[in-house]
């Protein structure tokens, strides 16, 4: 079929994206404290975001958003499709830390879970825009495809009992493409 810049170009892009995705899961090993690895967040910001994500989807007998590396998803996407939300995160995180200091005299990540919930309830009310954003992104980083940096080891899909590998009937030449 005559075409211009068709699948070949796309293929190249896929491979580049795959390489990036592969390296990002390595990076996420240094999550929460591995400051040098974050793409957008400072180490302190990453720690805050990680703790917020965990309150949004906490661990029970199944892993929570922290273990699923939702913060890694958010950090990665802030260098990609979510570039437009960078300011919202910088400012939002600062608000969270401000509220944390007022309430408990500590950084958010070091507050007791109940205090963290109080802080988040306040943020949800006073900074609804930022809270809606980080809530949606946490859900994406937890329930979405691991290729985007979250849902590590498909924790959420396993929780829901979805069989893996996810695509059935894939023909052999496709298995590499993700």
């Amino acid at each position, binding site marked *: 079929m005559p075409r211009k*810049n068709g699948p070949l170009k796309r*293929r190249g892009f896929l491979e580049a994206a795959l390489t990036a995705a592969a390296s990002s899961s390595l990076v996420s090993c240094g999550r929460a404290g591995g400051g040098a690895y974050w793409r957008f967040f400072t180490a302190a910001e990453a720690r805050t975001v990680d703790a917020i994500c965990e309150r949004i989807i906490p661990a029970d007998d199944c892993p929570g958003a922290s273990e699923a590396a939702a913060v890694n998803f958010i950090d990665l996407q802030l260098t990609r499709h979510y570039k437009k939300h960078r300011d919202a995160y910088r400012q939002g995180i600062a608000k969270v830390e401000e509220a944390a200091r007022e309430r408990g005299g500590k950084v958010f990540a070091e507050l007791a879970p109940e205090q963290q919930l109080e802080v988040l309830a306040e943020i949800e009310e006073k900074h609804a825009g930022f809270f809606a954003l980080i809530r949606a992104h946490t*859900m*994406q980083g937890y329930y*979405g*495809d691991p290729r*985007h940096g979250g849902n590590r080891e498909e924790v959420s899909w396993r929780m*829901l009992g979805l069989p893996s590998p996810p695509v*059935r009937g894939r023909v052999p030449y496709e298995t590499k493409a993700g």
Partner: protein
Amino acid sequence: MALKHVNAVIVGSGAGGGVAAKELATAGLSVVLLERGKFHSPAGCRKDDLRNQRTSALGNGFGPGDERNPRVLVDETGKERIVLASEGGYSNNAACVGGGTFSYGAMAWRFMEKDFRMKSTYGAVEGSTLDDWPLTYDELEPYYEKAEWEMGVSGDDSANPFRAPRKRPLPMPPLPPNREYEVLHPAAKRLGLHPFDIPMLRNTAPYNGRGPCMRCRWCVGFACEVDARTGTHNTVIPAALATGNCELRTECIVREVLVDNRGRASGVVYFDAEDRRQEQTADLVIVSGGAVESARLLLNSKSRLFPNGLGNRHDWVGRNLQSHTYSGAVGLFNFDTYDDLGPGAQIAICDYNHGNPGLAGGAMLANEFIRLPYQFLDYAPAYVPPWGPAHKEWVRKAFRRTIVVIGPTQEMPIFEARVQADPKVKDYWGIPVARLSGGKHPHSIEIARFMAGKAEAWLKEAGAARTWRRQPSRGLSGGQHQAGTCRMGGDPKTSVVDKYCRVHDVDNLHVIDASVHVTNGGFNPVLTILAVAYHAAGHLAKTWKNTRGRV
């Protein structure tokens, strides 16, 4: 270097444009098919649950991109803002070879007789431009059949007593029932309803050289990696190219339709993949860009003879933008209803399409397509907190135990729901963007509420322990089922094209896509778009015979 003159240039390779290309190319006309998006193949398929044509959190899977294609949305309160292609309110369908048919759900509905005669059936509705089509179901019937057999539809509507008469059954049987079907079917029977298997543009047996569906979890919104789902990209477009008479040029965005000094269309101006301005002259111009972009293109084609844009002498281009007011209900069961079998949507009823007391229409109701985890969150009821342990717990419990029944309520078209060319905002190529404004008719909402109640009753009868309704919003309707912006009609003062999709005052200019729909039925629209395209392009090919499109 000037491009070689051709018989026909077609703008857009979606449902309407794909069929038009095939009909004209097989009749021997030389055709250039211009598509602003890319060509995607099943082999390049990547199932991405955050970046596809249904969930666009990380962008649209099959176009358009966010960077180059803004629109302006004026909301119900009159506030305007710029929206990007992957954002809510953009009214996107798709931009790629195949258009919406590359990644759609592929329900393949025939409208009912009354859907073409809404005004005769229900009378005038205040505040609505509700009208009859200039075409009847009987006139379109052979073209519905042609679409079903040439492209390939599976399903079985023989148990649907409300269906419009058909001469030939569907060429392929339905998929074996999934669990939702098994739960919903007896319940519908107990209620005295008439459930049946949804017709789908999806192979369930080898057909047209392509294999059957393997029932994966990733269907609507994604590419089909085994090429079992049928769109124009794997049927009529390859057939057009195989004639040797049709050339497909991708990543080419058309800026305007050119007219000569006698007021006939003479070709189009477009920007190619390297952003070079090109002029393609042709004897016939066919606009098939989808309801928003076709209207935008006609409105952007201004000249001395047509100062308000082409086809727009009486201010009807861009008017009556409509889609469907979706509504329905969700049911939570005490047993597993999820069986991981795509495409998921399988069972429907047409008991409430017409004849609902006091209401001017209704909708088909069907079970919803299979839901991926992130998508599923959307169906949470109001009683579940939006985050925290209770939310997680609910997702975990409910994911495998919910059924969604939903339907596309036929809308009352309104003149003020419209597409304009924005006076200020331009896209990457400097072309004025689409400006969308207006809302829904209150009666559309009323009908949709009624439908939600019927969906809920069906789920309750099926044994749902809890149910909750999905209520419609008042905002402008557009999106995937966008239609109506270049209405078809007999009177040039109150419509844009005639029954053969020819623009009233430019005899070699046609609009062949969802734009021409007078009303949009209580069904997903694509089979009607395809049938109308076969009807119009077939007529054009027959009457062509070197008349250069003159009547």
